[in-house]
Each structure stands twice: as structure tokens, then as C-alpha cells.
């Protein structure tokens, strides 16, 4: 019996060496699912750190409100774990919105420029600042540092180009 066990141990040792595996690229796959708003609501300074945390197992998959339920489903499917509903203490999923600077009160202090994770704010010291709408991810990180509170979040209105067909409501419930 012990002979058998020793033999198997040797075989496994040899196999372990031959089948050395490099680090698998799971972090990139998780990062690909995350919405890249870099908003930090998940408790990590950006999407990539959150992705690494999930890969190492010390973060849950339901801490990303901008990702919404759909993002969690995809993460659960990728990692083969059970789907967990969005954990409310990290915030509620809000309609996609864009930050807008009220140009009458902006004093050009560049604090929001340093805070913006995706460099979506154009401006220089003592010059007028403005936000590039297409680049802004709606992460709301620029609102806090602004000393004169001139930044407000404006939800993106639906226009003819972005309008989506609605899910057909089948009136079966009512008699």
C-alpha cells in the first residue's frame, strides 16, 4: 500500500513539473466586463484594482453599481460562481449621466482636473474649465473637490439616435 502511495506521489511530482502553468489572464477578462467608470464606488481606486481584487478573491462581484445587474450576471458566468444581487451599501445604479460645469461660478482652480480619472475636463489655472461630454464617464469624482460647487450631474436625455425599442409588454395578466 505504502509502495503504491509513494509511486503515485512521484508520478504527480513529475507531472507537476511538466505541466507548469503561467498566470492565467483572468484579471483582463474581469476588467473587460467592468464599465470603466473608474468611480471607486466599489471601494477600490479604479476598475483594474477592483478586477485584481475579484481575481484574488478578496472582493465580491456585486460591488459595482454602474455595472448593474447585467454586469454581475456576466461576472458570475465568467467565474462560475452564484449570482448575487447588487450590494446596496455601494450605491444604487443611477441613470447614465454626465457632469456639467456651471461656467458662471467656475473660478479656474484646476482641482477637478486633477480629480478626473479620465482627463475629461479641459482647462488651466485661472482659465475657464469645461467637461468633454463624450469622455465623461459620470463617476462624480469631480463634484467633491470643487470649492465653489459649480459641477452638477445631468442625466443623458434619449434622442432619436439613442432611442431604444422597448420590451414588448404582452397584456396577458389582465383577464
Amino acid at each position, binding site marked *: *500500500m505504502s509502495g503504491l502511495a509513494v509511486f*503515485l506521489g512521484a*508520478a504527480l511530482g513529475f*507531472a507537476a513539473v511538466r505541466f507548469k502553468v503561467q498566470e492565467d489572464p483572468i484579471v483582463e477578462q474581469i476588467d473587460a466586463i467592468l464599465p470603466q467608470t473608474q468611480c471607486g464606488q466599489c471601494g477600490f481606486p479604479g476598475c483594474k484594482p477592483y478586477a485584481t481584487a475579484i481575481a484574488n478573491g478578496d472582493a465580491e462581484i456585486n460591488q459595482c453599481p454602474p455595472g448593474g445587474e447585467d454586469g454581475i450576471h456576466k461576472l458570475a458566468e465568467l467565474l*462560475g460562481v452564484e449570482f448575487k444581487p447588487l450590494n446596496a451599501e455601494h450605491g444604487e445604479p443611477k441613470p447614465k449621466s454626465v457632469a456639467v460645469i456651471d461656467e458662471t461660478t467656475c473660478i479656474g482652480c484646476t482641482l477637478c482636473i486633477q480629480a478626473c480619472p479620465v482627463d475629461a475636463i479641459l482647462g488651466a489655472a485661472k482659465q475657464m474649465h469645461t467637461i468633454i461630454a463624450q469622455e465623461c464617464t459620470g463617476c462624480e469624482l469631480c463634484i467633491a473637490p470643487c470649492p465653489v460647487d459649480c459641477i452638477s450631474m445631468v442625466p443623458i436625455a434619449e434622442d432619436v439616435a439613442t432611442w431604444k425599442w422597448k420590451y414588448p409588454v404582452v397584456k396577458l395578466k389582465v383577464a
Partner: protein
Amino acid sequence: MDIQSYILILIGTVFVNNIIMAKILGLCPFMGVSKSLETAIGMGAATTFVLTLASGSSYLINQYLLGTDLTYLRTLSFIVVIAGIVGFTEMFVRKTSPVLFRVLGIYLPLITTNCAVLGIPLLNVQAQHNFIQSLFFGFGGAVGFSMVLVLFAGLRERLEGADVPAVFRGTSIAMITAGLMSLAFMGFAGLVK
């Protein structure tokens, strides 16, 4: 032992007394891995590989190593061999397709604890199969296991879109489907004497 009886053993283990449907063995991977088709196929292949090797080597151990007096060591030795083979398979799968490894997750090492994997060698011993017969029996059992697993995965994927009442959604409707499947497999009863 001509070829005709081997075919009978094969048909017997794959259809008539199927590991999952008739013998109700190996239910935990059956329920756990059948969520999607790819994972089911991956799991089926891995189990077939492990089972064929296990039933072959377990026959050898039982015949030559244990002899007649050490039979009480049978289960222990079988488990050791199976663990070794599964360890080997796990590394092999991790190397060849990390995606499958990631998706199978916990169920790959769980093959060791899969009651079918231990059950078949013990059944082999009980039925005093010779080496070739136990190989065929193991292989047939594993093919039956993977076939039913893949079919069940197909059914469950279609079930995803069904408007199942909330109470039964998820595993419960899967259990019911498994029950109805074994009801259908009862039709094969008595096919092979």
C-alpha cells in the same frame, strides 16, 4: 469472452442501467455542471478519462496487489488511485484549456468524490469482471454518464428561457426534469438480459 458480450456490456451500462438514470450515482456533478453545454462536455470528457483509467487500474490492484486476504484495503486503495489520476487530469486540463479549468472550477477535483467514479470499480469487483470487461464496463459507464450529462445540459439551457413559475425556478425545475428523464430511461428496462 467474444466481442458480442462486450457490446452487450457497453449497451447495458450506457442505456439500460445508466449510471445516473438507473443507478442514481454521480448526482452532484450532474446537477452542478450541467448549467451550460461546454462545461458539460468538458466534464464528461474528464470523467470518462478518469473512469476508464480508474476501473482498469483498480482491477489490477484488486487482482495482484490485494490478493484474497487484504480485501478490506480495497476501498482505500481505489480512492488513492483515483485521487492520483484526478490530480493528474486536473493539471492536464489546467494546462490545455484554462477556460475550461476556470469554468469547471470546484467540480474538477470533485471527480474524486464522485460516487460513480468509486462505484464502478467496486461494481467491477462484485461482478468479477476480467480486465477487458472491467475496462469496457468503466468506459461504458462513463460514456453513459457524459451522454446524460450533455443531454441534461441541453435541456437546462432551453429551460433558461422558459416562463417557469417563480417557486420552481432554478434547481427545483432541474430536479423535476432529471426525474422525468429517468422516467424515460425506464423504457430501456429489460432491453439487455
